[in-house]
């Protein structure tokens, strides 16, 4: 039986596999229903033994620790070469990689080197006629495509957050896990690489209240000018403990600094209420608001992807809607003033 391989992303600082490995494990267990092979986790990096041993203990699966001499930080050139060498011996049916900034950088090239197929950003596994098919977003997230790969191995990048983290123990490995097997990559890979690592740059510290806010009012692609943000700022001023945020296009246009960006590449947020104003709903943005208590989406386009991931859907131009909302709040306040009530609209 050809193994189903999970590539664990090693946090080199902590010497631990990143938690995404358990989401990949859930995806692997679904594939296993049709592909039947044992699940094996591969941990590539520097001094991987401890992480591999911990993972073997937790998962009960076979782990391959792949030590790459001189490997300091992620290098696609090096990783593709040593994984090709490793997999040519293992002959996997499927290789699962998190769809992160690293995964999408090296997974397609790895598939080519193995003579296989690469599918990116998959969100579901569908079994039909004992065949594994995969679901991934298309058309700016308005639709999903059901995709059948043609060839082997199938290299999959798996959308973070699409699969629940697996409870370890639910997976079947070889049946007789030997625990950890250590492999060492060719020693001169890093020195001979065409890519030289120059380090990781930390984000500039910018103040924003996104992580503390109870309500986030966020603008997106629907904005036509920086002045449109003033309409959202007015909403923020009317809602206690709220903060302004934005999706990527607003940041890309230079209308707000990076600290305001909500999404995987910006801030992952967990407000009680998230108001998405003129936001279409890119995958990376949606992943950043998964933990919000309640999501309200306002968009002129009823087919926008955001409406599939909102609790309350409002088909309106966000500017007109924001003005209507502001006047509704004000008249509400006036009413409570007139009737002498203290009301609960005065911010507690």
């Amino acid at each position: 039986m050809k193994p189903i391989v999970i590539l664990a992303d090693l946090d080199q600082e902590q010497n631990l596999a990143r938690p995404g490995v358990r989401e990949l494990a859930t995806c692997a267990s679904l594939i296993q229903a049709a592909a039947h092979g044992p699940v094996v986790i591969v941990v590539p990096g520097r001094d991987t033994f401890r992480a591999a041993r911990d993972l073997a203990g937790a998962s009960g699966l076979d782990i391959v620790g792949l030590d790459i001499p001189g490997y300091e930080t992620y290098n696609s050139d090096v990783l593709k070469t040593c994984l090709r060498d490793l997999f040519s011996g293992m002959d996997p049916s499927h290789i699962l990689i998190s769809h992160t900034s690293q995964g999408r950088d090296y997974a397609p090239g790895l598939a080519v080197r193995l003579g296989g197929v690469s599918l990116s950003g998959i969100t579901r596994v569908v079994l039909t006629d004992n065949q594994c098919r995969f679901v991934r977003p298309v058309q700016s997230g308005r639709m999903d495509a059901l995709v059948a790969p043609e060839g082997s191995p199938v290299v999959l990048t798996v959308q973070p957050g699409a699969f629940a983290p697996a409870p370890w123990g639910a997976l079947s490995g070889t049946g007789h896990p030997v625990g950890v097997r250590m492999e060492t990559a060719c020693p001169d890979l890093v020195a001979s690489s065409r890519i030289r690592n120059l380090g990781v740059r930390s984000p500039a510290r910018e103040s924003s209240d996104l992580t503390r806010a109870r309500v986030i009012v966020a603008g997106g692609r629907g904005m036509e000018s920086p002045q449109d943000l003033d309409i959202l700022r007015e909403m923020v001023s009317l809602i206690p403990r709220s903060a302004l945020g934005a999706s990527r296009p607003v940041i890309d246009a230079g209308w707000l600094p990076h600290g305001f960006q909500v999404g995987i590449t910006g801030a992952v947020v967990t407000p009680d209420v998230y108001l998405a104003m003129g936001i279409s709903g890119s995958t990376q943005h949606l992943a950043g608001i998964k933990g919000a208590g309640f999501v309200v989406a306002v968009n002129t386009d009823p087919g926008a992807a955001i409406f599939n991931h909102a609790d309350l859907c409002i088909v309106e131009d966000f500017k007109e809607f924001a003005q209507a909302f502001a006047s509704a709040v004000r008249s509400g306040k006036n009413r409570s003033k007139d009737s002498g009530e203290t009301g609960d609209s005065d911010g507690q």
Partner: protein
Amino acid sequence: MQSGLDGHVMTLLVLVKQVPIPEEPSGMEMNRFDEYAVEEALRIRELFPGVQVHVMTLGPEGAGKVVKRALGMGADAGIHVITPENEFPGSALTAARAAAAINNHAYDLILTGILSQDRMEGQVGPLMAEYLGIPCAVGVVETALDPEDGSIRVEREMEAGFRDCISMRLPAVLAVQAGINRPRYPSLSHVLAAGKKTVHLVRASDLPGAPFAETQHILDLIPPEKTRAGVFVNGTCRDKAEELLHVLQQRGVI
């Protein structure tokens, strides 16, 4: 003329794709992520006068319009690999054809957008790099070309605002991220000049090594699963605003 170590004129290639406009039935435009790739190539040319910028699209007859648009932005020459109508090829097929189409031209740097709005695979750049046997970086948000050294320093976007800084030997492929620059609009003078620029036409079936195979088949298009309640509010704009206010009050946030 800007030249590399061996004295040749540096040439950049940008891949652009024509995609449907979702809101406009039968409307087509340049994939907006590709505009950043064109812009980045033009900026590199401005820093190193003499560098040539070529632009290539792979698409049906009508897709030549996006090559014209890139020429209107200022690219020097175009290539249109004409693919069958109604084919909607996947990334592996497109990347294989693109690699075959440039086979005889040693480009120093190849740029693509981060993904296409329609297929959303984000794989043409890294697949093509592998077919050509050259290094690749995905999610590039900063570039600094060093022609004398034959290398380029790039920063790749990682999660939470971190950046991976690397130096790559040329030739190389970069899939550039949105926001790396502010793409310019086509200028009148360039648009007028675009008519005189060469657009090399080649049929996909005439490429060396053709035909190339699809590695995946789309069996069906299905509406995405809802991950939340997804209740649509009816009525006037005012009614909807009142409803939101009501919901916020119920949840105790206003």
